């Protein structure tokens, strides 16, 4: 029984981002896991106060490069409610489409990273192969693969032509067929072996630790902010995906079904797309406080924005889904697992460190 210490990170191939886990291990069994953070802290919340509110959209976009759409949507919605304006309906639909495209690319990315973490390289390659088509669709709409720069205060910056909508429909068909193609792989023996029963988080623990997003939904909690009906979600028909597996495999399954749900939502958006303006211009002063919540691919994203009537904001506070999911992850890790499972457990909540530390 030799207890040794392993520093997992900050530079480790399984995490694209730097985070350190100090693991106390006995043989291969982890008895204590301590996250060490601060490697990606930039001080964005302070910069929010220094910049012009319009420039802050681009700063919010770069809080996280994997989910730029929810971040900007949350920020822009907060500022809009401070100003007392509302985006036109067409802008809301375009925002919804961007958010859902973002969710599709983020979930496929996650599935690939999980495959990489459990040594299933061809799965990683195959899923990312499909993801590239989604990125192409995003680039056709917004002009860039990763940072969309679509949202503006009071609407969106770019309109979608009918041609683009038709192209998007085709991409959705492609993505759906390719997902069906690779769906069987999820039932693979070795994938089940590596994810089932790994990183268990019961419903009770999920409620106690405040898990959000797919992590909570995989533990049987029906919690999806999109049901609150912000942007165009009020007009669309969908049910939150809930699975009762409570383990990494359940989180895999939730994300997989959400991919299909997102494809369906985008199709609904394309059918229901209203015509009209895309931007409401306003010079109202920003006064008071606003809270805006958006369902990001990783869970609930929360923005608190305070204005004091001047040209700049007084305070912007961001609470990201990964931050809420850190304690559940530590709960999962502290139940005892092997070194090999650490990467699977940490990945199963889809960590986004650059969001969390800002």
């Amino acid at each position, binding site marked *: 029984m030799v207890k040794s210490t392993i520093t997992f990170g900050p530079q480790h191939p399984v995490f694209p981002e730097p985070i350190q886990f100090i693991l106390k291990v006995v043989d291969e069994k982890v008895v204590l896991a301590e996250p060490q953070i601060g490697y990606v802290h930039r001080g964005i919340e302070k910069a929010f106060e220094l910049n012009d509110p319009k420039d802050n959209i681009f700063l919010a976009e770069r809080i996280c490069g994997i989910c730029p759409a929810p971040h900007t949507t949350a920020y822009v919605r907060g500022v809009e409610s401070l100003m007392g304006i509302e985006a036109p309906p067409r802008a809301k639909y375009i925002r919804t489409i961007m958010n859902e495209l973002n969710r599709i690319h983020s979930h496929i990315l996650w599935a690939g990273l999980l495959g990489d973490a459990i040594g299933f390289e061809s799965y990683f390659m195959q899923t990312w*192969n499909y993801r590239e088509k989604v990125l192409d669709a995003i680039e056709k709409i917004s002009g860039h693969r990763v940072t969309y720069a679509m949202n503006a205060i009071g609407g969106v910056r770019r309109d979608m032509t009918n041609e683009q909508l038709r192209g998007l429909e085709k991409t959705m068909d492609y993505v759906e067929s390719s997902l069906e193609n690779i769906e069987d792989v999820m039932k693979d023996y070795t994938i089940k072996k590596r994810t089932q029963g790994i990183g268990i988080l019961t419903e009770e623990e999920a409620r106690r630790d405040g898990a959000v997003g797919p992590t909570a939904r995989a533990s049987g909690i029906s919690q999806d902010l999109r049901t609150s009906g912000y942007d165009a979600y009020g007009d669309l028909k969908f049910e939150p995906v809930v699975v009762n597996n409570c383990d990494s495999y359940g989180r895999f399954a939730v994300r997989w079904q959400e991919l299909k749900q997102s494809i369906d939502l985008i199709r609904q958006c394309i059918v229901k797309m209203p015509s009209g303006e895309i931007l409401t211009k306003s010079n109202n002063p920003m006064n008071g406080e606003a809270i805006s919540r958006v369902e990001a691919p990783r869970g609930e994203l929360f923005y608190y924005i305070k204005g004091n009537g001047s040209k700049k904001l007084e305070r912007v506070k961001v609470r990201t889904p990964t931050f809420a999911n850190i304690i559940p992850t530590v709960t999962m890790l502290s139940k005892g697992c092997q070194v090999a499972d650490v990467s699977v457990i940490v990945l199963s909540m889809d960590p986004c460190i650059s969001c969390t530390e800002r």
Partner: protein
Amino acid sequence: MGIVEKSRLKSPWILHYDCSSCNGCDIEILACLTPYYDIERFGILSKGNPKHSDVLLVTGGVNHRNKTVLKNLYDQMPAPKVVIAIGACGSTGGIFHNCYNILGGADKIVPVDVYVPGCPPRPEAIIDGVVKALDKLKHLQNGTWKEPETGPIVVETAVGAKPAPAAKYANAAPAPTLNSQPTNKEA
């Protein structure tokens, strides 16, 4: 050029370190490995280990906590090694220029050989950057490396007369400084 020098250009193993980027560049680097771009064509493998790597890809601006990590990683890489700063943040700090915890680009800590602009750069640009870094290594091995010019690239557009076909950045002459008086090119 000997066989070792040739092999060096054919098998650059990369080490990727995310200083404090937003993930955009990291995901694009990962996208380079996937079938659409497949940088394994050039023998490039992503190694998570500084002792096995030849090329260090730095994304994101350096902050007070990870500057030591970056320095350590650089020092652990055996020579010859190349550093590529990816993206606006990795080169200059980019949009985080006024964040209190950002010191600036990677060149504040380690010598950078190639800068890849873009926020985030497309995978094509990253491939270009690696190719350019290998080109530099080749010239360094042959002893034909010339220090790059550092002055601004000036493109002049004529006004007041018929607009001449504007020369683009490619063959424009560098001017000494930004604040110097404009050259009065009277015919």
